[in-house]
C-alpha cells in the first residue's frame, strides 16, 4: 500500500506515491534523485541528511516521507540558483570548511536555520548549534570559521561574492529567501550555554 505525498521541494511542487515506511531521506535521494542529501548513520546522530522543512533544519532520517505531506522542503541543491552560491556555501568554500564533503550539505542546512535565528553568533554558539552534525575530517575549526563568515555576509546584505566555478571578481545577485526558509519565528530560541563553561581560547 502506498500513500500520496505532495511536497514543495526546492520550490517545485512534487506529488509522489510512497510506501509509508520509507523515510524522507530515502524519497529525496531515491525518488527525487536529490543525492546531495547524504546518509551517514542509522540512528539520527550524524546529521548528514539534514534538510530544511518548513523553515526548520530537520534530519530527514527522523521523518517518514508521509509526514512531509504538505511541507516545503529545501535541500542543498535548492539553496541557491544554479551557478550561484548561498553565502554559507561560499563561506564553506572560502574558509576550507570541508574536506571529503560528505557531511557538508547537512552541516550547511543546519547552519541555514541557525543563522536565521542567530544572526551574529559567537564561536561557542556555533559549536553548540552544529552538535548534531558530525564531521570526521575538519576537526570543526574551519566549519566554525565558515559559519561565522557566512553570518557576516548575511548581515552585510546577503551578497555572496563568489560564483560557482569562477573567481572572486564577479559579485552575485543579492541572496533571496528560499521558499520554505521561513523568516525567524516570533519566539527566539534560548541559546544553549556550555555545560562546562570552558573553551578559554577563541579565534
Amino acid at each position, binding site marked *: 500500500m502506498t500513500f500520496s505525498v505532495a511536497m514543495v521541494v526546492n520550490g517545485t511542487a512534487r506529488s509522489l506515491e510512497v*510506501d509509508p*515506511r*520509507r523515510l524522507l531521506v530515502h524519497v529525496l535521494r*531515491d525518488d527525487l*534523485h536529490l*543525492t*546531495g*542529501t*547524504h*546518509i*551517514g*548513520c*542509522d*540512528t539520527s*546522530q*550524524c546529521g548528514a541528511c539534514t534538510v530544511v522543512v518548513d523553515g526548520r533544519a530537520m534530519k530527514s532520517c527522523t521523518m517518514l516521507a508521509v509526514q512531509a505531506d504538505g511541507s516545503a522542503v529545501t535541500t*542543498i*541543491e535548492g539553496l*541557491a540558483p544554479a551557478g550561484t*552560491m548561498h553565502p554559507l*556555501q*561560499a563561506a564553506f*568554500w*572560502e574558509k*576550507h570548511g*570541508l*574536506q*571529503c*564533503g*560528505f*557531511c*557538508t*550539505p547537512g552541516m550547511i542546512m543546519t547552519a541555514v536555520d541557525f543563522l536565521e535565528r542567530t544572526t551574529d553568533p559567537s*564561536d*561557542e554558539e*556555533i*559549536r*553548540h548549534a*552544529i*552538535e548534531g*552534525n*558530525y*564531521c*570526521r*575530517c*575538519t*576537526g*570543526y*575549526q*574551519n*566549519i*566554525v570559521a565558515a559559519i561565522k563568515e557566512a553570518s557576516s555576509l548575511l548581515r552585510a546584505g546577503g551578497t555572496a561574492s563568489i560564483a560557482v*566555478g569562477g573567481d572572486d571578481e564577479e559579485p552575485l545577485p543579492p541572496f533571496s529567501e528560499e521558499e520554505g526558509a521561513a523568516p525567524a519565528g516570533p519566539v527566539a530560541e534560548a541559546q544553549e550555554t556550555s555545560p*562546562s563553561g*570552558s*573553551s*578559554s*581560547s*577563541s*579565534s
Partner: protein
Amino acid sequence: MAVATAFGAAIKRKEDPRFVTGTGTYVDDVQLPGMTYAAILRSPYAHARIKSIDISGAKAMPGVLAAWTGKDLEADLNPLPMAWAAGGNSGGEVGGVVNNVNSPRVLAIDDVKWTGEGVAVVIAETREQAEDAREAIDVDWELLPAVVDTEGATADGAPQLHENAPNNVAFTWAVGDRDGTDAALKAADVVVKQRIVNQRLIPNPMEARGSVGKWEQGNDEYTIWMGSQTPHIQRLLLAAFVMGVPENKIRVIAPDVGGGFGQKIFCYADMALVAWASKQLGGRPVKFAETRRENYQAGTHGRDHITYMKVAAKRDGTVTGLKVKTYANMGGRLSTIGPGIPTTLYGRLLAGPYKIPNVFCEVIGTYTNTVFVDAYRGAGRPEATYVLERAMDLVADELGIDPADVRRRNFLAPDEFPYRNPSGLLRSWNDAEVEIDSGNYEPALDKALAMAGYADIGTAKQEAEGRGKHLGVGLSTYLEICGVAPSKWIGLVGEGWGAAMWESANIRIHLTGKVVLSIGTSSHGQGHETTMAQIVATELGVPVEDVTVDHSDTFGTPFGYGTYGSRSAAVGGMAAIKAADKIKAKARVLAAHMLEAAPDDVVFEEGKLFVKGSPDKAKTIQEVALAAHVGYDLPDGVEPYLDETAYYDTPNCTWPFGSHVAIVEVDKETGAVDLVRYVAVDDCGVRINPMIVDGQLHGGLVQGIGQALWEGAVYDENGQLLTGSMMDYAVPRASWFPTFEMDQTVTPSPVNQMGVKGVGEAATIGSTPAVVNAVVDALSSYGIRHIDMPLTPQRVWRAMQAARNGGNGEVRS
C-alpha cells in the same frame, strides 16, 4: 623548480563547488539503469559453526532476484588476500617471523569468527525488498566459546579460532637487541615499568563503505565502483587473488569518497560480490551500500594493543633502554595489511625522535572473535608514539625532572642526521635502507611551550584549584614516518608488503593549452585536485585553473598505490614533477625547432621557452603544445603531442615531527576532563597549500584527542559489539573542543625537491599522548602515574577514588 606561483599559496579548493552544492557523486549516489540491491546476512554470533543455511524462504520473497550462500560462491571466488605478512626481521637474534595466515572469504562457509561476518546475500529489485528477504534466511548455528581480548587469547585454555594458529597467535615478530636492552635495564639508575592499553577504535569515515558492480556481457568485463583509497590496488587484488580474471577485464572507479582514515584502503568482500552477482544476473548492476551498523560490525577497526614496557634511564633523565612487548589484536581473520601495522609501522619507530641506544620490541599478533584490525589514521605510529611519550613522562615523574627537560636531554641533535635507530627501522635484512634524514626538534618544542605559557603553568594550576579543578599540562614530541616508501625497503624482500610503493603521474597538454594531470594516488577528502594542480601549474608555468586532475579511475589513470601513509604529496607529487620534467624536455626540443635554435640553448622559465638571453622571442608552453598537437612541422624523430608519464620510487621516507601541548582541567568531584587549550607546532616541511595543511592538522587533532578522551570500541566477553552504533561510539562533536592554537617550524625534507613531508596523520599521532599526559599531570597529587584510555569521567573518577583509598590509582581497562 620554477618560482613559486601557485605552489605554496592558500588557494581555495577546486573540488569544493561540487561538494558545497550537493553535486558530488559518492558511491551510493551512483545510479545505473536496471540497478539491483544487495543485502548481506551477517552473523549475530562472534564464534559459531554454520550447520546449515536455508535461503529458500528468501528466494520466494517479492522482488528477489537471487540469494546465495558462501558455498554457492566458492567455485568462483577465492578468499580475500592478506598482502602484508609481517616481515623484515632486521637480523635480530629472534628468529624467523611466524605467520599463520587466515583471511576472510567473500561469504563465510564453515564458521564465523566475529559478530557481523557475512554468511549469505540477497539481491532484489529494491533495497527494502532485499532487506525484507534477508529476514527470511534461516541459519542453523552451533555456538562456540569466544575470546575478544588480545592478551587473553594467548592464555592456556582460551577458545581457539584456527587450527593452524596455536594459542591464537597469528604472528610473532621482534626487532632490536634483546641482550643489549636487558643489559641497559640492569645497569640503569632507574627502571620504570607500565602496562599500557591502546584501545580499539572505529575509523568512522562519514560515508560508510559500499560498492556497485556491473558486468558487460559483450566483452566479459567488469566495472566496480567503490568507496576506496586504493582503486588500483583493489583492481589488482580482485583480479589476481579473489576473482581470478585478468586485470585488464576489471575497471575500478572510486568516485567521490567520503573520508577513509585507513578503513577504505582494504579489500572487502562486497567488492567481489557485486561484480560476481552482476554476472549471474546477466549484467544487471548490483549495488551494496552498508549501513553505519554494518560499517561498525564489518569494516576494519584500528589500534587494540596491550603493551608491557620497561624503560631504563640515568638519574639525569637520559633514557638508555626501552623494552616493549605488545599483544596486537588482528581480529578473527587477517585484513589486507593488518600484520604490517603493529610491526614495521610500530616497532621500527619506537625510539621516535630520541637517541635511545638500546631498544627491543616483541610483537605477538593474535586472533580474537572481533572484526579484523588494520590501519587507522597513523597506523602503528600512534601506538608507538603513545608508548614512547608515556615513557618519557613516567621517567620524568620517577626522577622528578620536568618532562620538557627529559625530552630535550634525549632529542637527536640537528647534527646527528642521517640517523639509524636501534629498532632497525633503517636497515632491513636485505640491506635496503631508510634513515631519519633530517630534524630539528628543539625549536618546535620551544615554540609550543612559549605559546602555551608553560613557564607560568604553576600559576594557572593554583587558580584552577580555587575553582575545584585540577589543571594539568601534557607534552608530546612526536616523530612520524611518512611518504611511504622505497619499494625495495617495504616490499616482499624487505618489510614484507606484498608489492611496491612507487607512484605515477601522466601529464597531457591539449591543443588548447589546457593541462590534464592523471595520478595514481586517490583523494578521499585531502584535496588532490587542488594541491596536485598547484604543483604542476608551478612546474609548467600555467594558470592553476588550467590544470585538471584526474584520479581514482583505473581506466585513464596510471597504476598507483593510492593514498595512505601521508604519501600522496611526497611520492605522488614527485611523480607529477618528474612527468612535468619530461614535458619540459620535449617542449624544449620543439621550441628550439620553432626558434631555429639548438635545444641546449633553449631555457624554460615560468611557462615560456626562449633562447638564452632572448626572452622577447619566447614561445609559450601553450604555443608549443599546439605545434606538438597539429604536428605540421615537427623536428625529425619527434612524436606529436605533449604527453608524458613518470613513475617515481622514493629513495627514502620523510620524517615529520612536532611538539604538542595540551592543557586540561579535571573536575575534582566528577572526574570530567575538559580540554581547555591545545597548542600544536608541526613541522611537515614545506607546505604546498597552507590552508589544506591546517585543515589536515585540525582533523587529525580531533581524532587523536578523541582517542584520549572519548572513543573506544567495546566488545563484551561474548563478542557482541556494545558500541554498535553512533549512539554508543563517541564520535567527537564540535562543542567538545577549544579553538586549536597552531604554528609551525619548517625543516624541508631533503629527500624530494619540494621539501614536503606529509601531514595527513601527524596531528593524530601527536595529540593522543599529549592529552593523556596532561590528565595524568593534573592528577599527580594523587600519586596517579597512568590511566588507560579513553579518559572518561567514570574512569578518571575511579582512579581518583582508588588513589584516595590508598592505591596508586591504576584502573585497568
